[in-house]
């Protein structure tokens, strides 16, 4: 027994780059991937983590001091750096309990499919990280594995149901039938968009708005190009830090590099996970042969919509401005400005492309993300360090537009760590009530349509 303990400890001590290949190989073997292929997957993901570690280090070393100088010079306290969802996903996949959570989420999906409680077949294993991180953070704070698993399972149930309910929008508005989008980073905005859309429709100014912005792509297009955005932001922050010109330019190029390199490193994760994702797809599809279901896809398939792009190009600069002026916000939006499209996609679908409403609701969505990201940054930073992202402890923290910065994930996480005995049952009851109401309304609609 002590030998196993010694082996386990040696691996734990070696850190994430050693843990990851082992965990992923095991997950792959369970799904029936061949050992050699599973091991290559694991190794690729380990390499991805090493790469992300390098880039985040560079980002923090260059941007951290500038952000602190900004605080001293102008009192703009933006010392929580948005390192991007990819880095957070890397932390998620490196958690010691990730394997348990992945199977818990998959089991939740299979059980719900079997009980006909959902139509969404979600084998997009990659995007499980959004549901898993909530469980990992709950586990990190409470030290309770069951609570962590429960948090991820609740995330999963809510995600699958939101996917079911938004699937008609994906078909009607985006024109993609037969799929749903269980991607929390896109779905979370539904929590903002549904009530706000109802509210704004009471006001004629919003309801009847015909606002259009022509040539948004032509004039604002550079906000959609990560390299240019990184360069501008880097130079701007350098100027606010009162650097000299050569240092301003060098920060600009270095931040452009970060914007391009983070996705390159993250794509190694995706590449490594692909064989496992395919195996999971075959596994589940075989078991539910003949059953008609919605195939769960990454929300990446809808963000090419022109309304989504226009809204994002306007929301991105306004979000940067908002970060500077919102009282209490400390998050410096950066790497995840590149994926604002995901945060506004569902908003656009719900308003059916009403640009004025899209901008207002998009900003409420990114604004709440900034606050939730600020509030949960200390725990996220400490978790990332414990897992092996060796970021300097210079007073700046890390966060992103993903993980518990997302409205849905934030609510579930807070319910679990504030007072699980009261808030977790409350959360379940409230969601169950919404479930019953929505399905009742949908049935009525279907009946009306059938007549």
């Amino acid at each position: 027994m002590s030998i196993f303990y010694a082996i386990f400890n040696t691996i734990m001590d070696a850190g994430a780059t050693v843990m990851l290949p082992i965990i992923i190989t095991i997950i792959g073997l369970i799904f029936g991937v061949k050992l050699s292929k599973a091991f290559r997957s694991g190794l690729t993901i380990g390499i991805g983590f090493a790469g992300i570690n390098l880039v985040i280090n560079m980002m923090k070393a260059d941007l951290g001091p500038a952000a602190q100088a900004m605080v001293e010079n102008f009192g703009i306290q933006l010392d929580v750096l948005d390192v991007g969802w990819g880095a957070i996903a890397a932390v998620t996949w490196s958690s010691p309990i990730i394997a348990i959570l992945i199977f818990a989420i998959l089991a939740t999906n299979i059980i719900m499919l079997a009980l006909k409680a959902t139509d969404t077949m979600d084998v997009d294993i990659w995007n499980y990280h959004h549901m898993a991180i909530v469980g990992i953070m709950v586990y990190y704070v409470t030290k309770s594995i069951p609570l962590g698993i429960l948090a991820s399972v609740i995330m999963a149930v809510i995600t699958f149901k939101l996917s079911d309910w938004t699937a008609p929008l994906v078909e009607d508005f985006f024109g993609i039938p037969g799929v749903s989008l269980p991607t929390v980073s896109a779905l979370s905005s539904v929590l903002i968009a549904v009530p706000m859309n109802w509210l704004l429709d009471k006001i004629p100014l919003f309801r009847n708005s015909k606002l259009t912005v022509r040539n948004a792509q032509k004039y604002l297009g550079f906000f959609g190009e990560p390299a240019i955005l990184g360069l501008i932001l880097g130079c701007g922050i350098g100027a606010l830090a009162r650097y000299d010109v050569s240092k301003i330019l060098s920060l600009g190029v270095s931040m452009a590099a970060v914007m391009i390199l983070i996705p390159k490193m993250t794509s190694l994760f995706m590449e490594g996970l692909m064989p496992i994702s395919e195996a999971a797809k075959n596994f589940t599809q075989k078991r539910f042969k003949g059953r008609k279901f919605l195939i769960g896809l990454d929300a990446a398939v809808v963000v090419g919509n022109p309304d989504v792009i226009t809204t994002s190009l306007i929301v991105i600069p306004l979000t940067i401005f908002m970060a500077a002026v919102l009282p209490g916000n400390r998050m410096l939006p950066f790497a995840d400005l590149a994926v604002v499209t995901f945060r506004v996609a569902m908003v656009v679908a719900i308003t059916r492309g009403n640009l004025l409403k899209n901008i207002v609701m998009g900003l409420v969505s990114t604004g709440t993300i900034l606050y939730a990201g600020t509030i949960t940054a200390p725990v996220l930073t400490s978790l990332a360090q414990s897992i092996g992202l060796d970021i300097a402890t210079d007073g700046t923290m890390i966060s992103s537009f993903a993980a518990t910065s997302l409205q849905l994930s934030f609510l579930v996480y807070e319910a679990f760590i504030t007072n699980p005995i009261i808030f977790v049952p409350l959360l379940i009851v409230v969601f169950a009530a919404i479930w019953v109401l929505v399905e009742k309304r949908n049935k009525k609609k279907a009946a009306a349509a059938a007549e």
Partner: protein
Amino acid sequence: MKRVLVACGNGIATSTVVATKIREACENHGVPVTVSQCKLLEVESKADDFDLLVTTGKFTGGSVSVPVVGAINLLTGINEDATLEEILGYLK
């Protein structure tokens, strides 16, 4: 050698799946090819340097001068072969 640009929402997730499948299919058919990935937002500024644009969702966000193939089938697994045939048709 023909050049393919695969675009998706963040240039990482679904485009990696599609790019890998295109590379594998080309290898099996002995078609030499280079495959690059990008974000949909960057398509307009990049597409002109390529022979074919493949998107993972519906792309209606701009005008490009190269042929465009929608490859959502490579993600869902339905009619996957037909889509790969279409892509190979442009690359042979």
